[in-house]
């Protein structure tokens, strides 16, 4: 599923994402003007991404620029993006407000051959990759299930406010898990893999920075 449809679907299920705007004409000079306009409207810092079928994954280096703080940086990033795209046809440019730093999490979904849609929750980055610190449930989940998914992580103290930090908004995480579970159930058989990575949790609320649906 393309980025825009994925974002729209997420928003339909009340999954909070950083504000974003899509501007047309990625390859051309007028693309730059539109991007600048969008960035000023959203407010810096922003991320700029070239949207193209060729680059489905965010990790594809060179077509995503983060933490652009002003017009100059954005204009420079635009040039680099076009150069790195090597002429690949672009659907447009995505300008997205940078999410403030917080606790990075992951919420995912996968269809299990025996149980159907499953939902995965974990701490982002090293915790998922190295420690496999995730909790899994079969959808649909209950509020109690969502609560357990958060609390059973070995890294839970990081969410509860370890090392003098403020605890994150657990209620908003529970809502997020319930919403994702509903989305996955409603699209059973249509979604194979679902990724909100990272989700950034704050003292109040949480934001799904990237949405990928396969």
């Amino acid at each position, binding site marked *: 599923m393309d980025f825009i449809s994925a974002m729209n679907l997420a928003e339909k299920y009340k999954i909070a994402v950083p504000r974003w705007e899509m501007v047309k004409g990625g390859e051309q000079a007028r693309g730059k003007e539109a991007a600048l306009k969008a960035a000023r409207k959203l407010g810096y810092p922003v991320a700029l991404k070239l949207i193209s079928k060729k680059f489905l994954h965010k990790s594809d280096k060179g077509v995503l620029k983060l933490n652009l703080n002003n017009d100059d940086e954005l204009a420079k990033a635009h040039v680099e993006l076009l150069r790195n795209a090597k002429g690949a046809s672009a659907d447009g440019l995505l300008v997205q407000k940078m999410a403030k730093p917080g606790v990075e999490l992951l919420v995912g979904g996968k269809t*299990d*051959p*025996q*149980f*159907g*849609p*499953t939902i*995965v929750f974990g701490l982002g980055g090293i915790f998922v990759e190295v420690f*496999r610190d*995730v*909790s*899994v*449930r*079969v*959808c*649909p*989940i209950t509020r*109690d*299930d969502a609560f*357990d998914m958060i609390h*059973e992580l070995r890294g839970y103290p990081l969410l509860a406010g370890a090392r003098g930090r403020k605890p994150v908004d657990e209620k908003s995480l529970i809502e997020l898990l319930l919403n994702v579970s509903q989305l*996955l*159930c409603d699209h*059973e058989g249509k979604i194979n893999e679902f990724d909100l990575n990272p989700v950034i949790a704050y003292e109040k609320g949480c934001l799904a920075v990237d949405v990928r649906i396969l």
Partner: protein
Amino acid sequence: MIGMKANNEWKPEEWKIRNLHAIFHPKSIAVIGASREPGKIGHIIVKNFIDGGYAGKIYPINPFANEVLGLKTYSHISEVPGEIDSAIIAIPAALVPQALEECGKRGVKGAVIISGGFGEIGKTKLEQQIASISNKYKIATIGPNCMGVLTPSDRNDSIFLPLYKMGRPKVGDISFISQSGAVGGCIIDLAARAGVGIGKFISYGNAAVINEADLLAYLAHDEKTRVVVAYLEGVREGRAFMQAAKMVTKKKPLIVLKAGKTSAGQAAAKSHTGALAGSPEVYEGVFKQCGITEANTLTELFDFAKIFDIKECGSGKIAVITNGGGSGVLAADHIEEFGLELAEFSTQTKNSLRKILPPYTTVHNPVDLVGDADSSRYEKAIEIAANDPNVDIIIVIVLFQTVGIDARVVPVIVKAAEKSPKPLVVVSTGGEYTEIQRRILDSYGVPTYPSPSSAVRSISKLVKYCNRK
């Protein structure tokens, strides 16, 4: 196979539940493939029914014999005069569909197909035939490729292993389902040796008709079952399994040992009973979601099952009574390790304990009855601890190696356990003599463990179950 959509509800078919009852509590049974030849499966099964003391009618079926083990034998099931609740089928796979068809026409309610040679060796069509005949005639069919069914209360025993090789447990209220016949056989044998009672045992093999979900749904409502234990390699219909498991855990504990969690285990499972294993994380989630208590080894399965026969455990505050200080310390360590708590004794308890203990000992939990403790000191200490409102569970550690203790403490503990309003488990570590005493305690329904760690781990599972949402 997922089996159904995420938002749908599953219910077992009414006829399956009804006819399963006939398999577990049959008034009459037929053995299709009954044999005159000792050593043949069809011989062992008939012999087991006779030797086991089955009180219902036994109809051996064999077109080439007039009698098997002194019983009148019929060439076809259609010739049997009376009603037949359950047919045990032990004939070559290719002949099974016809025999099952005859069962259907004859109005047989349930069938246990011992014969192998179906889905597990790739003969899926033959297996589908079994399913469609069973569905057509509404026969609750267990198997194929299974080891049989055991209901000790009814002396209903279609397990094809001779009694002298595999012991049969006494009547109890722990029911056990096993995909694998071999693993099931080991557990039944161990249960028989340990004196642990069984309500029902079902080896369900390829599950062509009756699968784990149907069995769980049955056992959830079975008044004679208080604890359900399952050995699984994979499940056939994930969502049906989950809903059936929830039906059980709403009413009684369900303990599951899931094999095939690693990729090596999964490869073995695929070629075994033909079931696919899910990824370990998904299963872990499923178990948590359904309130299932997961066991990681056969020993744990047993350890947990024994203690889950206990109904109440409060918030899990433990009193430890021991005649060996070291074992008490080990128990205290494990209690903290497993997130449990040592009970804080009331003043009254402390005063009462002071009166029965030698003056040089201190009075606190764990209670050290010291090395010269005898049966009467145990009796008094247990009674005092049991009456303390701060105590939920009592661990009694008995080291039989000491001077003051011998077999005479066993009836004392059994009586104290019966009198105690709080659950009581015994830990005894040692050799042959200790093992014998433990077995006697177990057979009187007092759960025993060979180490403080296994006891505390089991209690932690019980407490978790008792305090589930």
